[in-house]
């Protein structure tokens, strides 16, 4: 197997065996999605209106739970130095870690979303749009998160600063993702919002490995 696939597979294996990543994110996502309808009450129309925004914010916050460990574990135990000296460029290392994070967190959150949409009284069409928006947008969450995780790498309790760095950067994803669901609820097409979300996500996945790699390099030198 090539070095990229090797690192991707190892990170997926670690995510599955450490138990704290995907399971914690999914539990948090499900809990938030369950509590909101209890707090808002039985106004089914209101629940459907806010579903997109609430589920998108919940998904972003859930993904955040495991983001601070994206590079931290490897940095603390010395693996990152070994990886940095391997034939795999640090940019590709960052991309492998982003992919592993998305596969172990973003994808499971997306797959769970149609079930949680039932709690918000969403019809089939907005549920499908929500699913698509999360499928398109959650890679951006992992990608932008990788930049934040690399910037806070050598900081003690960097996980506390991480949300402050990346949440503002993820505003476009939340706006377009939740906006797509709202457009469908209003009887309009969601193509434009999903298109903008796809462009944002593509840009984030394309550029963030370079930013994250530069930051990792600085931290390895520090």
């Amino acid at each position, binding site marked *: 197997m090539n070095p990229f696939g090797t690192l991707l597979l190892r990170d997926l294996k670690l995510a599955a065996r450490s138990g704290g990543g995907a399971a914690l994110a999914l539990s948090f996502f499900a809990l938030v999605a369950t509590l909101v309808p209890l707090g808002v009450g039985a106004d089914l129309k209101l629940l459907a209106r806010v579903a997109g925004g609430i589920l998108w914010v919940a998904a972003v916050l859930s993904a955040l739970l495991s983001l601070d460990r994206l590079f931290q574990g490897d940095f603390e135990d010395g693996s990152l130095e*070994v990886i940095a000296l391997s034939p795999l460029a640090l940019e590709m290392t960052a991309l492998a870690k982003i992919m592993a994070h998305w596969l172990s967190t973003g994808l499971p959150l997306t797959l769970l979303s149609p079930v949680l949409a039932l709690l918000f009284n969403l019809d089939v069409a907005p549920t499908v749009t929500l699913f698509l928006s999360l499928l398109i947008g959650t890679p951006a969450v992992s990608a932008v998160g990788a930049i934040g995780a690399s910037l806070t790498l050598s900081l003690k309790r960097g996980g506390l600063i991480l949300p402050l760095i990346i949440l503002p950067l993820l505003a476009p994803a939340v706006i377009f993702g939740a906006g797509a669901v709202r457009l469908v609820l209003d009887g309009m097409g969601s193509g434009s919002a999903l298109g903008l979300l796809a462009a944002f996500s593509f840009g984030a996945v394309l550029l963030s490995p370079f930013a994250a790699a530069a930051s990792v390099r600085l931290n390895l030198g520090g």
Partner: protein
Amino acid sequence: MRGDRKLFDGLSFRVTAGQALAVEGANGAGKTSLLRMIAGFLAPAAGRIVLKSAEGESAEAEERGKSIGWLGHQDGLKPQLTVREQLDFFAHLHGRKADANALERVGLARQAELPCRYLSAGQRRRLALARLLVSERPVWLLDEPFAALDTAGQGLIAQLMARHCGHGGIIIAATHDPLGLGNESLKL
């Protein structure tokens, strides 16, 4: 430089194929920093580090890094992975095939299927040494290579280092203990 403090100045040395160099000095003298500079993690404030090989000369840190096998303070092991999985990961990461003999050479063949969390500090160090063997890099940078090793472990690493130099490899080690290779030493 460490912050505003100059760690060392006017440092010049040359290590040729088959040689070992022990970097000695008190705690905080800059031994680890020097190794990190050679590895390319740290940039020197002035001067340059050049690696010459049959393919030519390279002063670029990333290019140099491709020839370096690194054993730092931390062993770079994951508690969730088994010894074999860990070693296979390192081999494949370096574009090599997994070497079934490497674990035997460091005395960990019986622990192959054991998760790394159950290894002692000495066994973890041995596995990190096996990583150096499978990565097949010509230049070994070793930071306190004897740390956590018992007498048998120290004998083993001395044997592996001698073998590496015997095959034309280079070793630069930050250490408080003699390498026992009839090597040069650099005092910081």
